[in-house]
């Protein structure tokens, strides 16, 4: 036995060292990334069944972290390529259907009975002049677990560089798409495309907006609906903004907000209160409401617009309990009628939950980690309802 001492020594050191190391790593993952909520005011029940997807910056490392009342877990990435949570769920549930599909939320629509995927049309530079692109639709019948596909040629003959979907929804067997075409020079066109799902026919392609670019100004169209919502949203909210090309920071000249009623196809103008367009820090669309928020040294100001009734509600001002170093809003997100706002207060991160319709502050609490040794930054990217166990 003793003539094997070198072999045993090396093998022993290897086993012990690696075991200890990976145990330490596992411990650290549990401890270091353990975030808890410390209530300041309001009711705990508003965070009970929620899971927050956050982006954590710790030193020079960025991680995605899922935080719920009871536990925090790091999202495993392989070579920094992470599959967004909602797609992970879709992949788990419909593995075969999801194969080879691009993971772009705007290309999907999901409801109780079906899952629809639109393949991004060919890039314009691949399409020869005179040709056009096709709308390629994949439909998964969730009930029967059957897949149907069809493709319809677009009737538009514009020159374009790039086409993509801003929104996909289904209303009464009509597949309604908000399609954006971007030309070589950056100018944009926004279309509403309606396809009859049963007959698999193209019903209409309507130009809604055009955003041109010239030397003096640059106009662009931007959508504000929640990225991670794959289901039906009543209104598609967007803005057409003009920027001054001559100024180094591309100053905002004007911004016009509009909402498309996805059921009636009607377009509603939304007039912002004076000066608000220059102060926008966060914009959320939650069902019937457009919520705009910004932060000042004194606190957070929240503007709510009831899209259906076409009126602005009383702005909410939530004062800071402590002095805030960074007046910019950290992050916001919305879900089911509630607005979730994260602000950085000194070295803590404070979560506030507001009821959008009533304007009340439902919960205020710190998101803290006692174990982290150095400065970290955390902001919320999404909030999910936890599946009831």
């Amino acid at each position, binding site marked *: 036995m003793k003539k094997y001492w070198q072999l045993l020594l090396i093998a022993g050191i290897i086993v012990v*060292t690696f075991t200890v190391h990976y145990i330490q790593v596992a411990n650290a993952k549990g401890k270091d990334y353990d975030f808890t909520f410390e209530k300041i005011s309001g009711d705990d029940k508003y965070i009970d069944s929620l899971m927050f997807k956050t982006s954590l910056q710790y030193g020079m490392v960025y991680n995605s972290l899922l935080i719920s009342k009871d536990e925090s877990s790091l999202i495993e990435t*392989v070579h920094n390529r992470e599959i967004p949570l909602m797609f992970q769920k879709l992949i788990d549930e419909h593995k075969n259907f999801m194969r080879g599909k691009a993971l772009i939320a705007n290309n999907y629509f999901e409801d109780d009975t079906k899952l629809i995927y639109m393949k991004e049309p060919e890039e314009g530079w691949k399409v020869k002049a005179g040709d056009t692109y096709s709308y390629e639709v994949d439909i998964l019948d969730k009930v029967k677990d059957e897949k149907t596909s069809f493709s319809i040629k677009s009737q538009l003959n514009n020159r374009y560089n790039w086409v993509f979907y801003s929104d996909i929804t289904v209303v009464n067997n009509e597949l309604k798409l908000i399609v954006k075409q971007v030309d070589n020079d950056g100018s944009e066109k926004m279309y509403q495309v309606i396809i009859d799902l049963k007959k698999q026919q193209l019903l209409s392609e309507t130009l809604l907006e055009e955003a041109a670019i010239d030397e003096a100004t640059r106009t662009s169209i931007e959508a504000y609906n929640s990225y991670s919502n794959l289901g039906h949203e009543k209104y598609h909210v967007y803005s057409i903004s003009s920027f001054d090309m001559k100024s180094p920071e591309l100053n905002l000249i004007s911004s016009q907000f509009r909402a498309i009623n996805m059921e009636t196809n009607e377009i509603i103008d939304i007039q912002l209160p004076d000066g608000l367009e220059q102060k926008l820090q966060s914009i959320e669309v939650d069902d019937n409401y457009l919520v705009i928020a910004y932060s000042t040294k004194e606190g957070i100001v929240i503007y709510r617009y009831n899209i259906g009734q076409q009126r602005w509600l009383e702005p909410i001002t939530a004062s800071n309990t402590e002095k805030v170093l960074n007046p910019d809003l950290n992050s916001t997100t919305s879900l089911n009628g509630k607005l979730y706002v994260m602000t950085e207060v000194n070295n803590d991160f404070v979560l506030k939950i507001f009821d959008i319709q009533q304007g009340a502050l439902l919960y205020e609490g710190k998101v803290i980690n006692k174990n982290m040794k150095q400065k970290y930054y955390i902001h919320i990217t999404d909030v999910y309802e936890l599946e009831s166990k």
Partner: protein
Amino acid sequence: MNHYIKLVNFEVKRFSKLYLSLIIAVVAAQIIGAIVTSSFYVSNAETTMVRDQMTVSDYILTYGAYSLQNFLFSEYFFLSVIFAAALLMIYVFFIWYRDWLGKSSVIYRLLMLPTARRNVYFAKLTTILLFVFGLTAMQIILLEVVNQITQRIVPDQLWMDESIIYIYSTELLDLLYPQSPLLFVFYYVIGITAVAVIFTSILFERSYHLKGIFLAFIYCVISVGIVMVPVIVQIITNYFYTNEIYLLVTGFSVLTTALAIYLADYLLKRKINV
């Protein structure tokens, strides 16, 4: 099995002196690096703070505190790792060629042992693995030592403690010590396959000489091709999910290793030339 272990022991022992020297060299280089980078940082910090009339917290805000990163990005660490890797890489070849060269032809003895000749192959493969893992294990310990040394040299306020997860996310370290089990298996299977393929290539050369080098080259290309099959399929069809590709490549790697072993066994039994 018994003979295999005895052969592993034989191979380990004959390299152990050189291996120990290598370890000592790496340890020395990194300890020196720890002392040098931290001392340099401290003197630099002190000079700057005096010259620019800064407080400690001001200095940290502008220039950053000292952390293990300072050491990890220094030449002392980087070069010592590269040096060790290069030496082991050379030994992947030399572990075979040493048996043919020189006054002594140990290969005669190895081939005349009353044991399956593939045990010689397995023993050399195992030895390389042991030496590689041995070095990486030692590096983990060494980083702890470096951490302790720098902590003693750099004053507390200028020293930044870092989480183990953060430290091991640094470029080179996340390659050697992957935190995802899938990646760990993936990297090390690929590594083993590479060594196995090199070994079999060497046996081609030793069996067929000049023609053997040509055969070895073709064999290597085929081996790489096999491992890449899932990747090529993915490029064409875009059918698989990322973690499925990692699993598939790992699987095809194992296949390639099996092929390497099969060919090596054949060459050692029927074609080898002393």
